[in-house]
């Protein structure tokens, strides 16, 4: 493979850190513009009154997934040099359940809590502090659950290999499901708006 990208920047080099800062600015900007630095907006997703979280998240996943797929097809990006997060089946299912419960209580996720805190929301600062405390105490206690933490290791495995299909077919399936989800989300929002309007005198 002689694809030119990703850039071969040494970890911690000024170039790599400049890229990191610029990417972060874009990330924070998009989260704030979408309103995801607001706990009320995030809770709207889970009360089914405002599905912006789903729409933002899945249009972002589709954009990045399709962009990466075509850039690698045209030989611009070497996919083997893009890090795929490793799978640990049991810990990620359990972690997801605990994380989801925390997100519904906090009304923010770790990334959006940083945006909320940056815009002066005190509840955002409380989430940031709680998250840091949770990371610190879990890290210190992790040796006691080391066996479970390391269980179900599958490496950087992807859905297409698990389902024994091609990457292109898998992407088509995800795009189709997301599109159906967008149509359903708009319909649910209209239904909820109507039921709220009828409930009011």
């Amino acid at each position, binding site marked *: 493979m002689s694809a030119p990208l990703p850039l071969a920047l040494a*970890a*911690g080099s000024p170039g790599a850190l400049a890229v990191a800062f610029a*990417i972060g600015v874009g*990330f924070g900007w998009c989260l704030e513009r979408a*309103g995801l630095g607001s706990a009320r907006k995030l809770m709207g997703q889970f009360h089914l009154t405002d599905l912006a979280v789903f729409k933002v998240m899945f249009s972002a996943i589709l954009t990045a997934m399709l962009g990466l797929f075509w*850039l690698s097809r045209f030989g611009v990006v070497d996919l083997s040099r893009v890090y*795929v997060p490793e799978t640990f089946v049991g810990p990620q299912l359990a972690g997801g359940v605990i994380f989801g419960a925390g*997100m519904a209580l906090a009304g923010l996720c770790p990334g959006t809590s940083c945006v909320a805190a*940056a815009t002066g929301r005190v509840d955002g600062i409380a989430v940031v502090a709680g998250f840091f405390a949770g990371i610190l105490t879990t890290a210190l206690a992790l040796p006691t659950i080391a066996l479970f933490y390391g269980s179900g290791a599958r490496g950087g495995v992807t859905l297409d290999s698990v389902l024994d299909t091609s990457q292109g077919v898998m992407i088509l399936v995800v795009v189709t499901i997301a599109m159906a989800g967008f149509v359903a989300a708009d319909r649910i929002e209209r239904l909820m708006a109507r039921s709220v309007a009828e409930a009011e005198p």
Partner: protein
Amino acid sequence: MSARTVPRPYADPYLAGVGLGLVLLASFVLAGRGLGASGAFATAAASAVNAAAPGAAAGNMFLAEHLTTGGPLRDWLVVEIVGVIAGGFVSAALARRIGGRVERGAHQSVQQRLASAAGGGALMGLGAILARGCTSGQALTGGALLSLGAWLFIGAAFASAYLVAFATRGSWR
């Protein structure tokens, strides 16, 4: 309120989502990695432990992986999160959405809201360590890369969040 102080409406979610996707794509293309949030907190925790008790972080199976040579400000995710704070602040300032306040439900006191925020944050810390990432590093990044674990995390986290939000819906309505 005068026109100068009224917050501007939020952007269309699909437009913001495509923008976020392009930022994520740029990260894959330029840096060979996706976005993240919890990793920056892990690096900060490792640095804090090391400052309190030199060498203690190196003896911990999780913190040892998050120690950086040259301090936390040389870490990719820490610098990225500093960028997130800067980008979020500038975006909110231009749209007149800056202001110190506690956002809370109609049936929730300020104390209840802050306790729920901190407690929820702590639970997310436990969940993010078990899951090897949060909404940014697992759901968005791993989701776009079709990672099996990321999609298991998305399913589990959303199902759990819907249940807990339903159980606590009284405080927000």
